[in-house]
């Protein structure tokens, strides 16, 4: 991270594990001595709505829980149209995006009142608002692991694989142990490493 504060948005749809992903990321960074602030979306808006967590990472001080418009450095999206939504509000030409390619159709799309954009055009749109985009088939991989919810940790692994944040599988183990429970370590580590492999070199075991 060459910027201070370094601003991260984790976005997706209610129920995709957005809050947990941001908690794990934040915990790993606090352990490394950073001041981290996370602003989260909870409650009613989690029922099928767009959700996002703002992470502000600084060496020097505690920042506010919301990122000012146009100042996101990294967008981690569990859903592709949510990546576009966040970039349009908080993006800038230097923003980097890590995007799960599996769509979650809004009820208004299911009902036929709204179209969901064509995937190629949507990903072009995400690209047009980012300096770099990593596309990750996180949900497909998570289904192979037996639970679609693991897409969130796969994406965190992808962030690590791409070298965007200084986090390792060991850091994840620690965070999972502290904020979840020890029996969750194994599966989450597997998901993290799968994600790493999708964007970067395989880590030394």
């Amino acid at each position: 991270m060459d910027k201070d504060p370094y601003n991260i948005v984790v976005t997706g749809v209610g129920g995709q594990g957005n809050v947990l992903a941001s908690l794990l990321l934040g915990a790993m960074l606090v352990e490394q001595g950073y001041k981290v602030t996370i602003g989260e979306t909870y409650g009613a808006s989690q029922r099928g709505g767009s959700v996002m967590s703002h992470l502000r990472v600084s060496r020097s001080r505690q920042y506010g829980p919301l990122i000012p418009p146009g100042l996101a450095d990294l967008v981690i999206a569990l859903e592709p149209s949510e990546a576009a939504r966040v970039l349009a509000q908080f993006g800038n030409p230097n923003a980097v995006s890590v995007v799960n390619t599996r769509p979650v159709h809004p009820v208004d799309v299911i009902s036929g009142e709204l179209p969901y954009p064509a995937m190629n055009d949507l990903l072009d749109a995400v690209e047009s608002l980012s300096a770099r985009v990593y596309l990750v088939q996180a949900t497909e991989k998570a289904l192979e692991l037996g639970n679609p919810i693991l897409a969130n940790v796969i994406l965190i692994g992808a962030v690590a694989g791409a070298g965007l944040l200084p986090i390792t599988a060991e850091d994840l183990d620690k965070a999972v142990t502290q904020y979840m429970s020890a029996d969750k370590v194994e599966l989450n580590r597997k998901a993290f490493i799968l994600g790493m492999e999708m964007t970067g070199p395989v880590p030394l075991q």
Partner: protein
Amino acid sequence: MPVIGIDAPGKEVLLMGNEAIARGALEAGLSVAAAYPGNPSSEIIGSLAEVAAQMGIYVEWSINEKVALEVAAAAATSGLNAIVAMKQNGLNVASDFLLNLNMTGIRGGLVLVVCDDPSGISSTNEEDSRIYAKLADLPLMEPATFHEAKDMVRHAFELSRKIGNVCLVRSVTRISHARGNVVLGPLHKEKPVPYFDTSRPLSALPAAVTHPVAHERLRQAQEDFEDSPFNKYRGPNSPELLIITCGAGWLFANEAVEILGLEARIGLLKIGTTWPLPERLILSHLGSASKVLFLEEVDPVLENNVKSLYADHNLDLPRIDFLGKKSGTVPDQGELSPGLVLSILSGLTGAVAPGVAPKYQATAEEVLNNFCPARSLAFCPGCPHRASYWAIKTALALDGRDGVLFGDIGCYGLGFMPTGFSQAKTLHAMGSGIGMASGFGILNRLGATQPALTVCGDSTFYHAAIPALINALHHKANCLMIVLDNSATAMTGFQPHPGSAADAMGSPAPVIDIEQVCSGLGAEPVVLDPFQVQETVTTVYDLLQRDGTNILILRQPCALVRAKKGARRYKVTVDPAKCMGEDCGCNRLCTRVFRCPGLNWDRDLKKTNIDEAICAGCGVCADICPAHAIVKGND
């Protein structure tokens, strides 16, 4: 060990604002905690419940906020430290008791934390609860950071013990539901033995005597606040503009001043102790600027109180231009945000924030318009409420008398939106659905012809529905109460309630059975599984034809709870040969009307399919598909 219970003074950890509040109580020497869940306050008591055994404290989810405050007050009047937490709506419920407790005072320490929800992110209103501090003559503090939330609660306990009265701490969503670094202090482990001194009874009567005592206690709090470390000033001695702010506003203002490079021109006065005002401190700053801007959420509470203070001292102070909600400089509703504060300060000073290039901005707008389909709120895939509302909708259509469904608060409050087929027609407070149905149910005596019905969740039933149900039964109101029993306080995070077999701390607890409560009141409740769609429709229809107050309990666990337990009921698939899509006479009942997120409408093939990453396997869509194209198989 959950993070809030770690015994490691000096260690820096990541805590949610609500967890920091809970930690502050533990550091102050907490004995008792009580609450009814309500976002954004729920994790305060939830996180204390997780460490109750280790810390030797008692924690409960009370049936409503008034009872929670009464439970905490019993502890505090017996010399202990007790915390009670609620959301803004909850303070309304607790207010009847609070506005008497303030008159008697307490003997231990009692901190009432109320978490407001500016913009109503997870609430039906965005009321500013700070008004209650003034109304009840109680001191009020507002934390601006996570670490401060912890320290402030610890201090609130000290102050509460010192003045012998309740202290209020007001948090907001962006503090309560945000996380940040908190440096842990030492845990206070000794717990006093509770003892109620019966030689000194506590009564609000006579009010003419207790009211002045309450005022005297408030004056003591004001002295404490005059040189409180929770109030800070940053900026030049004579700023061109003085910002007075509190809570999350301080973080936004700080950053905006920095981004705009206004450090030499603007003064920032952060008030952590917002009632009673630290008058000497504020007066010393009011004299230094001719323009004052207030940044606070939601109502102009600080603004009005400072203006009132100014009026008392106007002869000694210069002319001041007050800017805030009254002047229209700051919106008088909604939450503050960095973008909003930046634009307000830009407008007032002419300083311009460095922004993205116009070309990027234009692309961003185009993307927002074309690639970001709106996401309406919806019941989760497999939610039993969707099935319940489907049955209600069908039965009301069969009945044909334009029945009125009085709604209530919970996940099923979404029933007034398309996800509940727009069936609910009112939405107000906890338990007000059955109260209004009781009222409408007697109107046939005055000529009304529409049947009345209401929905009520299991947690809401205990919270506020029972007195209204008794009212309906006693007055023979013609109404149908449908209890949507999903065995969870789902909207706020699955806290146990009196229908659960365990309490907040995980100890076994007797179940107060909704069915038996209803039977005990002389009603004969019918119990059904809403996933039995046809039977539910027929039963709702039949009950609507009956006179008197009838009760139907639709029981099926919350889909999120079922998902945590693993196995899906069915593996649901669509037989493409049978799905006739738009040519089916059903007019796409499954996707256009039923709208479960687990279904997908394939625009190219013009057929429905199932999204296996989302489908919860309830199988209700299979039951409503007239072509039998949706198939329930074994998972």
